[in-house]
Each structure stands twice: as C-alpha cells, then as structure tokens.
C-alpha cells in the first residue's frame, strides 16, 4: 500500500508503560499512522511534551501492530530524556515522529539475529517480521539481563544465549558462540544490533564465514530527518553518511573495515 507521506509527526496516547528489568521499560503507544508504515529496524524520534527536553530522543521500534494501531519501544533509563520517558503513564500523550531511516532486509531465507543489551529491541521487531524463520543469539552480562528470552519465544526458531559470567548458556560473548553457529547452520544473513565493539566483532566473523551481515548503528541525533548532520559517520569508502537517513541499518562492509 502506497502511503502519500513516508513519515508523520503525531500526538500518540500512551497505552501502557511496563518495567521489564532494572531500569528497562516497555512503552506502548497508539500511533496507527506510524504502525502501518513501520519496517523492522526503523526508529522514531519521541518528543516528551512536558517541556523537560528540547530535543527529541531517537528510539528503535520494538514492535508495531498494524491491527491495533500500536507501536512499542523498549528502552533503558540512562539520562534526562529516558527518565522523563519512564515517568509517562497510560493516558498521557507523547509526540511520535517517524518511522525514520531504513530497516533490515526481510527477504532473507534463514537469518541469524545477534543482539546485545538494548540492541535486542529493534531486532525483536525483525524477529516478528520474519515470522519464525530467524534464530537469535543474545548476549548479556548475567542471566537476569537476558529477560529478552521471553520476548523472543514464539517469534524465532532457536534461541542461543551467552553470558559474561556463564550464568546462562555459553560463558563469554556473542562472538564466542557465533563461529560455531555459522559453521553448523545455513544462515544467509546475520542481523546485528548492540554495542559497536560487539557489532564489529560479529561483522568480522560473518565476513570470515562468507555470510552477509547488516548492523544497526546508534548516534546522537538532532532532527532525525537527514537535515542537521549531527549523526554523520565515516564509511569504509571514505564518505560521510547519516545514521538517521542512510541507516540506522547498514551493510557491515559499508561501515566496518
């Protein structure tokens, strides 16, 4: 369906705000115009309307329900903006600008999702979009941080876990287990989101195994529309690109040497 406008800025009613883990919240808002346009991997710019923040805050879309007209975000409270966000209650209003940027490739036959920390949020949307075709490899410091297992259950075939302390799954990082998975299974795409150092490692291993890899980058933003040039990054061919407009999803080879 072709929609006349690619992106919208709308006031959205907060449907629910739920604590998932220490400082981690799930916010669901009613934004049908965003839900019907949203693609897995895209993000929105949220404007908190109580005047506490001048700039919008970029947040990845964790889920979009076209039927209910809702969009969900999962975020960790790290500063002033996310603190204000976490104080919103059902019935409050927030302004949603989006959907923004480009998403992951949904034409893959057998993708492996690799996520660390809050990077698991945008790939949760991707897992749902792939309708059970994907596997997920998730990494965290401890078993508790991998509360994400419950969220991915039913959306993926296999869930693989790594923890720094070995309290769940393989002891180590996602990069510890990845070579084994890529050798054993027939993945045609690796989709990674998490700390940059993790994504660099993932991209390197995927390249060694000859598997295509997409990564989702994060950067401070102003407008989110490609106008202010706050979120410029260097590409491997010496160009500058904008995370908000050209990304946030990039082919790994475009951004990591």
């Amino acid at each position: 369906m072709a929609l006349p406008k690619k992106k919208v800025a709308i006031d959205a009613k907060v449907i629910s705000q739920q604590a998932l883990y220490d400082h981690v919240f799930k916010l669901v808002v009613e934004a049908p115009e965003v839900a019907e346009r949203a693609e897995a991997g895209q993000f929105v710019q949220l404007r908190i309307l109580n005047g506490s923040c001048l700039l919008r805050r970029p947040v990845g879309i964790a889920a979009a329900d076209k039927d209910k007209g809702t969009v969900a975000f999962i975020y960790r409270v790290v500063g002033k903006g996310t603190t204000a966000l976490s104080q919103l209650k059902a019935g409050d209003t927030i302004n949603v600008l989006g959907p923004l940027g480009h998403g992951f490739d949904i034409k893959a036959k057998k993708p492996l999702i690799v996520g660390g920390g809050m990077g698991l949020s945008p790939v949760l949307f991707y897992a749902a979009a792939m309708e059970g075709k994907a596997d997920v490899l998730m990494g965290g410091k401890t078993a508790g941080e991998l509360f994400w297992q419950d969220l991915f259950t039913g959306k993926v075939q296999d869930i693989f876990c790594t923890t720094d302390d070995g309290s769940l799954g393989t002891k180590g990082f996602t990069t510890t287990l990845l070579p084994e998975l890529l050798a054993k299974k027939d993945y045609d795409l690796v989709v990674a989101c998490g700390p940059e150092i993790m994504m660099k490692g993932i991209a390197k291993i995927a390249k060694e195994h000859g598997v295509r890899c997409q990564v989702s980058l994060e950067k401070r933003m102003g407008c989110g529309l490609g106008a202010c040039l706050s979120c410029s990054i260097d590409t491997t061919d010496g160009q500058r690109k904008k995370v908000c407009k050209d990304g946030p999803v990039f082919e790994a080879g475009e951004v990591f040497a």
Partner: protein
Amino acid sequence: MSHVLQEKDQRLHTNIAGISMNTPVLTASGTFGFGEEFADFVDLSRLGGVMVKGTTLKPRRGNDGVRITESPMGMMNCIGLENPGVDVFLKETLPRIEQYGMNTIVNISGGTVEEYGILAEMLDVPGVAAIELNVSCPNVKEGGIVFGTDPKAAAAVVREAKKHTKKPVILKLSPNVTDIVTMAKACEDAGADILSLINTLMGMEINIHTQRPTLGNITGGLSGPCIKPVAVRMVWQVAQAVNVPIIGMGGISSFEDAIEFFLAGASAVAVGTANFADPNVTMKICDGIDNYLAEHKLDSIEQLVGKVQID
C-alpha cells in the same frame, strides 16, 4: 507544487530587498537541510525562504566526534560545515529542490575573501533567490568567525560578494562580538541588502564523569530558546542603527517569539532549532502571526516592524 496564496496569507505576504515572500517566516541555515527533508511536514512554498545548509567551494567533511548536545533550554552543535560543495549543489541539489517552489537562499562560507566572490558568482543562477554570507560559523578554524568579528573583514566580504552577483546579499551577523552595531553598520555601508542575526553563541560543555569536553570540536554553537533574549536585544540595537531590512533569528519556537522580533525591528524571521522538536513548527508560526495581525487589526507585517514602544 507551488503554494496558492490562501486568503489568510495575503496579510503575511511581504517583500524584502526585492525578494517576494509568501510569509515572513524562513528557516535558518543548518537546521533545515535543503528543505526537501521537511517536505512531508511543511508546505515549503509557504515559507518566506529556506536558507539552505552552509555551502563551500570544496566539499567539507565537517568535524569528528560528538556534534550535538542538549543544554538547558537549548543545544550546542559543532557540525563544522559538512557539505557536498557548490558544484554538487548546483548540479544535483538545486535542480532537485526546484519542484518545491520555495525561495532558496544559499548560505555560503569562504576561507578567503576571494572565495566569497567566486561562490557568489557561481550561485548567480536562476533558482537562487538570494545569497547569505556566513561570516560567523563558530565551528571552523579558517575563515568563518574571523570575518565575522572584524568589521573591515566583514565589509570586504560583502563588497566582494556584491561585485560578483546581482542577487540580494544577506550578511549573517555573529553575536560573538564586542559591539554588533559596529559590525552591522560596516556591512550596511559595504552594500549588504539584508542583515540576518543572530548566529549561534559560542559555548562549551564539560562532561564531569570523563572530565573532557562533550563536543568533538571542544566548543560549539549554542542555539534554542535560551538565546532568544540576546537575539531580540541585538535585533533591536541593530534596527536602531541601520536602514536595511533585518531577518531576525535566535531561539524562535512560537508565533509569540516571532512577534517579539518584529516589534524589535526585524522585517522577517527565521526558525532554526525549533524545527528539530517540531518539523511543522513554521506552519504553526505562520498561522499564529496571521491571527495576531487580525486581532490587532493590522493588514500587513510591515505595520508591526520596529513598533516596540519605549518610554
């Protein structure tokens, strides 16, 4: 897509130094890209003009590291004039944005006086409504702020640009000077058709956890509501001293803010940082100004310019 003057916009139509503007509301350079990025949210032809991203002779990569940070009621940036260069602008960007039917005002930045002349001449083409001389970018090492803080250098830049273009020439004044009126007069005497003010105020933020500057360029340009009182004051001071029209800017995020600038002596206003918070804010400001004029039984914006009552 060209804007058909709605009946209500008849009051808002204005003419500044030969530039016909559907409304006296423009967008400030660096905050609105080339206009096209906002096409989903704004009727670009309804704007008085779009002052496009700062353009230089050669492409510029801009600064490395963190380029933006929020501050109380404002933000700081240190983009560093990242742009594809004037050749790409002329070959690719300008033909592409023509469809929006807006006044395209090209903001140019040179490393030498001569470069301003070269750029002005290259941009003396159909589709460009005016040239804005950026002599006040706080985020680049060469040129930029140097021309903006020395009245003789700023005047030389204006003369050079005027010599090479028939387009109206706008000089953008820096607030980072001892006496902005001296700068304004020097630029008017040198032939500037319009003065725009203010550019960002130079600022700095230090992260107390890392004990390092937040911004990659150490300092940055402060913008947003926190600078509005400084901007209104400077517009008022400059308006007393010059006869050329002024495009006022600095922290405008509502029609009330815009009205203050008109009363202080601005003939038009430009909106910058507020576009980030609300991409549609310029349209709301146009509507608000129009309502204000109607309520005060005024037929045009000219009747408001410089009408602040003192004593």
